[in-house]
């Protein structure tokens, strides 16, 4: 690991009781939801991590604790470093404080996570769905949401599927 990253991780371990792991040259730091905004502000202001490259989430259903991980990847242009922060979110407490005040790009990214996973961000100025229609129910990227697969029509079941398909009249 890069020596500058080691110093940063030491500070995060002391202040935010973070744990970390390394894989293929990347550093993943686990931080609690309550301290993520402070961690982001600290990294942006004191260590010039000025670009929030990625903000997404992963669903670990049927495991409930934690059910989701919210992932932030920060890039520092001046030092050419990257660091990944992961926030575990419980299945029965889907709230994370918003990062919009630290990075403006989080506005749309958090709307996308709300739309796809159902994780709410406290203090978000505009909590609406972004990709699905406004009246859609459900959160598509969760693991218990079905793919919405349509059965392929082979010769043996062609007619019965054809009768069920909603063709448009004039």
């Amino acid at each position: 690991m890069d020596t500058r990253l080691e110093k940063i991780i030491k500070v995060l371990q002391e202040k935010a009781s973070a744990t970390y792991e390394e894989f293929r040259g990347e550093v993943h730091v686990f931080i609690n939801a309550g301290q993520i905004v402070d961690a982001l502000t600290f990294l942006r202001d004191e260590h010039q991590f000025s670009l929030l490259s990625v903000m997404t989430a992963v669903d670990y259903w049927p495991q409930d604790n934690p059910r989701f991980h919210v992932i932030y990847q920060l890039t520092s242009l001046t030092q050419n470093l990257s660091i990944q922060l992961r926030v575990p979110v419980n299945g029965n407490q889907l709230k994370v404080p918003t990062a919009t005040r630290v990075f403006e790009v989080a506005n749309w990214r958090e709307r996308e996570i709300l739309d796809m996973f159902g994780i709410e961000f406290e203090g978000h100025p505009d909590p609406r769905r972004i990709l699905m229609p406004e009246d859609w129910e459900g959160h598509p990227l969760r693991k218990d949401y079905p793919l919405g697969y349509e059965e392929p029509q082979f010769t043996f079941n062609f007619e019965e599927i054809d009768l069920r398909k909603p063709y448009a009249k004039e």
Partner: protein
Amino acid sequence: MSEYQLQEVPVGPYKHLVSERAVSGETMLLNMGPQHPSTHGVLRLLLELDGEVIINCIPDIGYLHTGIEKNMEAKTYQKAEVMTDRLDYMNNMGNNLAYVMAVEKLVDLDVPPRAQTLRVILTELQRIGSHLVWLGTTALDLAAMSVFLYCFREREIILDIFEMVSGQRMMTTYFRPGGVWRDVPVEFEGAVRNFLKILPKRIDEYEALLTKNPLWLDRTVGLGKLDAATALQHGVTGPMLRATGVNWDLRKVRPYMGYEQYDFNIPIETRGDTYARYLVRVQELRESLKIVEQALNKLPMGPVRSDNRKFVPPPRSELGTSMESLIHHFKLWTEGFPAPKASIYSAVESPRGELGVYLEGDGGPKPYRVHWRTPSFDNLSVLSKIVKGHLVADLIAILASIDIVLGDIDR
């Protein structure tokens, strides 16, 4: 029928995003709808207009949402690559490259040097093709229609090269984990060299038509000014960021696929307006030509795919003689290859910015989570800030200069 009469867009759901003058009815909310000739795809823009001047602009995306991320979780690593071409449909080879680089990083697979050089040549040709379409459609939006026809004529030569190499004009799926699908035919080098001879003069023609044209300058200088701090806050990368003065190109700072061997410049402009973005992209066309020429001169002999049979299928000629090849072939075709239970993030420089793949495996043959960090999503989020106070016709120019592809945004 009442639903076909002109209806005003209701202010209700957007009260927190528009100014108070919209609520009182002084300004008008106009829908620049999903079907529009100049929005470069199905993008809906809600404009709050005071006459012709834009007070607020609210983008509404999702009209092309394809569910690619969820669909890729249901397919094996090899089969999921087919869907990657269709994300950013101007940059098919680039999307393939981002995905196979992520898979190779996850399973720790090597790529032979001939395959790396071929990947560089084809990705840069794709970048030239993408910038040509951008130039053509931008000029078409600003009523310089002949540039559109010229750019598409050039692009046909690039598509012929892709068809020669992989059989398909656009959705090639040519890069595979471990290298490329198969070796290029003998006519490849001649065709690329021919293209390299033709294009520089044509780029000079486009520049002669547009760069010092007073009409073009009137319509693009000073529009949509973006400064570096706002750009970084909004996660903007690519030519849009380089037009504000920040020197950040993933091919130079984090070289991949052997980009450190090639000698090329990164064009930087400082003004941050539409004209600067135009200059950066036209200059990038020339730099890409340099890279293709150097890579073609350096093209080494050798295999085009890794020989790690756990991930790369053996050639069919071996299947008749070797038992292990048969078993490897069988396992790869029925199950696919397993990946470790870990996650990585790998990024390349697409013509629009940083295209990254967050790939998480779970020990099985299917990806557990694939997230695409697409550049157009973040680039578009800055639109509402940079069009304030401009006219609607300027909005068209600014939107064209951001170079969005809706497949990238909505995935």
